[in-house]
């Protein structure tokens, strides 16, 4: 076993990538390791010769087609979605399949500077020898341009707008100029950028429409069905509880279903039976958050309760997740409790009472 905490996609799935390259029958675009159809198989699963290719992204296959087609047309790709919709995951696997290299990454943060996007200098060398190729430190995008491969920009909307603007010229001109060395480096065929951005997180810089126009935009959805979402949640909660020693029983299907139901209804703004619309709270209720509140209530139950997640534990975890901005969220939750949860058949009554108790104090 490797000591590395987290392997890159191309290392983890080296065998599958090799098998796909070996079984290649279709034309391969310049700079790519395999044909677009093989990339598609790599992402959604299938077979290459005798090797079974495991699916990496489950659900919206058509979106994967759009993403790959975009990269074929040398346009850049922007994956947008709520937190926990596998944006980075998809971008990593796309580059792993297309270039066999998913490591040309820029992590967008508030501290990302224009130099991170373009290039910077080894200042010791710069002072000693003046501007030279040796002293130049190239950004991942610079490297991708030179090698005709794909660079990734994670969380692009977290970067300040002037940093985002630096991307505009790179994406439209497809070249970087280095005035200090009086030269210009053109991108090789195959160069492109996959960026990811978060739509609902607060404290995110808006992307300018000039930058948006340079991307083909694909919006990744939350899990399509409640069954799919429950499956994801259950698997992840199990993994988490093992690694975190939560000392509580894994919540049964019934509890998972309740959480997923409430989350989906708030997220979609409509009840599962599509009969009633619901106001949406200010926070993002992603699948990832559903996982964390279940783990949270397990921790509560394990450390302070009887080791089994009760409606009380669940209610406090829900209250914490849903009511973020005191007045408006708690009204929204109350309205949901009264108009939806109270009237629901089955064993919702207990949970309703606990939630109501916690949420009281609102007029």
């Amino acid at each position: 076993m490797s000591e590395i905490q987290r392997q890159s996609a191309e290392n983890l799935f080296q065998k599958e990538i090799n098998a796909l390259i070996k079984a290649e029958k279709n034309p391969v675009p310049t700079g790519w390791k395999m044909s677009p159809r093989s990339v598609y198989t790599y992402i959604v699963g299938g077979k290459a010769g005798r090797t079974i290719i495991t699916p990496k992204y489950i659900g919206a296959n058509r979106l994967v087609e759009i993403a790959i087609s975009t990269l074929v047309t040398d346009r850049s790709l922007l994956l947008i979605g709520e937190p926990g919709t596998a944006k980075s995951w998809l971008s990593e696997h796309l580059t792993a399949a297309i270039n066999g290299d998913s490591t040309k990454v820029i992590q967008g943060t508030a501290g990302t500077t224009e130099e991170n996007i373009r290039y910077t200098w080894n200042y010791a060398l710069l002072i000693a020898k003046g501007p030279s190729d040796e002293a130049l430190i190239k950004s991942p995008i610079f490297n991708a341009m030179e090698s005709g491969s794909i660079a990734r920009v994670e969380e692009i909307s977290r970067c300040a707008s002037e940093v985002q603007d630096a991307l505009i010229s790179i994406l439209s001109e497809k070249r970087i100029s280095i005035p200090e060395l009086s030269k210009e480096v053109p991108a090789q065929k195959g160069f492109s950028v996959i960026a990811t951005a978060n739509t609902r997180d607060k404290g995110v810089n808006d992307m300018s429409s000039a930058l948006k126009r340079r991307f083909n935009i694909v919006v990744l959805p939350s899990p399509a069905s409640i069954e799919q979402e429950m499956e994801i949640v259950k698997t992840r909660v199990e993994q988490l509880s093992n690694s975190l020693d939560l000392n509580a029983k894994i919540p049964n299907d019934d509890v998972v279903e309740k959480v997923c139901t409430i989350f989906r209804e708030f997220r979609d703004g409509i009840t599962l039976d599509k009969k009633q619309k619901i106001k949406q709270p200010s926070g993002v209720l992603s699948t990832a958050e559903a996982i964390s509140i279940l783990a949270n209530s397990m921790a509560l139950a394990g450390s302070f309760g009887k080791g089994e997640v009760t409606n009380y534990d669940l209610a406090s975890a829900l209250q914490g997740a849903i009511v973020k901005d005191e007045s408006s969220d708690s009204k929204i939750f109350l309205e949901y409790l009264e108009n939806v949860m109270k009237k629901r058949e089955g064993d919702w009554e207990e949970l309703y009472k606990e939630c109501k108790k916690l949420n009281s104090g609102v007029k």
Partner: protein
Amino acid sequence: MPNYFGIRHLSPNGAFNIRRKLDELKPKVVLIESPSDFTSFIPEFSNKEVKPPFAILAFTSEKPIKTVIVPFAIYSPEYQAVLWCNENKVECRFIDLPSDIVISLELSLDEKIKELDSKDKDDKSIDGGVKYNFKYRSIYDLLEKKYGSHETFWEANIEHTNNQDDNYFEAVNSYGAELRSVDYLNNLSNSNNNKNNFDFANNYIRESYMKAQILEVLDNNKKISEEDIVILTGAFHTEGLKLDNKGVTPMTKKELASLNKLVKANKTVTQKTLMPYSYFKLSKQAGYGAGNNAPNYYHMLWNAINNSDLDSIGIEYLTSIAREMREEGHNASSAQVIDAVKLSKSLAYLNNREYPTLLDLQDACLTCFGEGELGSIAKARTITEIGTTIGYLPDGMSNTSIQQDFNNNIDDLKLRTYTTITTNEVSLDLRENIHVKSEKSAFLDLNRSFFLHRLKTLGVHFCSQILHSQDSASFREKWNLQWSTEVEIELVESSLLGDTIERASIQFMRNSIEEDTSISNISKQILNSFLCGLPEALSEFIVIFQMETIESKDFIGFANCIDNLMNIINYGNLRKMSKSNLESTINMLETLYQKVILMLDDNLSCDDSQVKAMIKAIDIIDKLTIDFESIDNKQWLSILDNITDNLNINQFLAGYSTALLLEKGFYTPEDVEKKIIFHLSSSIDGKITANWLEGFCMKNRYQLILNLNIWKYLDKYISGLGEEDFKRVVLFLRRAFTKFSSSEKDSIVDNLKELWGVNIANSEINTTITKQELEVFKNLASIIDDEYDFDNI
């Protein structure tokens, strides 16, 4: 062997290829799958004034109204084949079952299915019978899974085939044959499904009849050989119609006679007409052959195929999208069109398609124009894909079912005598007439009201309601009726919305809601559907209301909706509303109540222009808590209670709420006295005090006048004001009391006399304002005019 051509209905490529094949084969007779009793309409297809889309329409004039509609667009293979025959003077016939048999079969089968289904329910043992392992899934589901949509499959494999040799027909025929075998398996495996069995039988009967029609042509004219005939049907039927296919036997005269007997037994008489159709309507019809989801796009496809330039369709589609988006004020550049074209081609390539399909174009459009979201491109897509084309038929060619339905209703409801070109007034009493025997006559006036409300909704100017004053009894309605030629035209136009007045009016309301999802409009349509006596529409709109208005913060809109709902519930019995509808209306009312009382807080700081509407809204909610027992009024009372002392909200509302609670007995006069003292305290701004008082007086002057203590405090308050403060407050105070009647003012004067211990004539104090005083007020008003509107001083 005759020449069989299987096609897909509404297929541009089919329309192109059939013309090509007809030119090549030059047949003597062309037989087409359409109701045979419409053969006489064939010459009309070529009338110069006729513009597709139009439809052939058969309908029964007796209830239940049933229809057979076959729409034709310019890209319908059948339409192009008929045109070819008319141009080349070749005999053309429709050979499918006549419409009366179709409807009669449907009526009998519906009844039979219901009967069998209910029997199956009672007879549980059937479930224990033979089970087949073959799990049937609709062919459309299978295609959907593999190709994203079955339309995409059709388009890529059938509409985009290159037009040499018989590629098109080969593709369609093999698809039709496959469909047939799946249908057969389906029938085997679902032998417990009664509906399925009858569909299967229905297809057999149709094919058997069509086969007999083909043989009849051959028998009646010895000069015509099998090769001289072209048979044009849906690809599914091609196999069954082949003369050597023993699986389907031609219908015998005896069999036909028994079908006609059925028609007689059901008393099915159909009227036949052509009717104008629209691309919009075509796009709304679901199901094979009945419609297609993107008529305008298919029209573009028809043009592209005729120009042998399939490559252009993507460009035309995407440019049209860009144009429409720009028209709406969105950003859409030619550079984006280029990117979208490239993406659509790349998507087609990834799926082994030669040309992008509509699905690829839509996705390219979503990605390049819509930033991944449907919002900004939705309208442009609708216009580009569905289009606004409406067919046209010359005057007199159309005799639609809705005109017939109108006349039936007029006779049924005994309104014929009012159908004149002069105005007639009708007065309706909606209550049950207990002096008559039949239910029909007992509710004659109610049914008249439903009918007239439906016409009013449709904008057919046959009737106009005379609105009477609020206090007159609600079980009476008055209408003016008048017939004119415009009414006739409006009726034909309505036929595009539905086959009967009832269905058309429902569709009209649906369209209205689709266009305008505001609270007031949906709430209006809910009330409308109630007045029109359309319970299904009512429950449908209630669901829509809940869907559409969840994010809304329109407090007053919600309150007005509550008012409408209360009306519905109050008059529900009078208008014979169903129990379930009544329940869901009450349910909605309760939900709305929760919503508005939670919203009230946020709306209390409204500006003065909204005060009237707010007070009306508060009255509505209050009425709700009084009239409906199921509503918990404690919450309401405690909310009002909190309002009365809140200085941060509009003080009219605080004053008004105080008076309301006093009236409801929630406050005692002593409580109110305390509130008044509080609002008269010197630390509170004069404007607040005066507004509060005015709000209070809006509801309950009597209580104010009666309570001498209040006047004592008021007197103390006014004498305690400094000169500057007095100048400010006197204006507000004056306004608060202007609406008092002279006798009320007299009572106030009595109070003041007692307080001041003076004994003079009331007229000494209660005088009309002098010019001089008015000037002073006006001057005062101008000083603080910017704060308040004193126009009505």
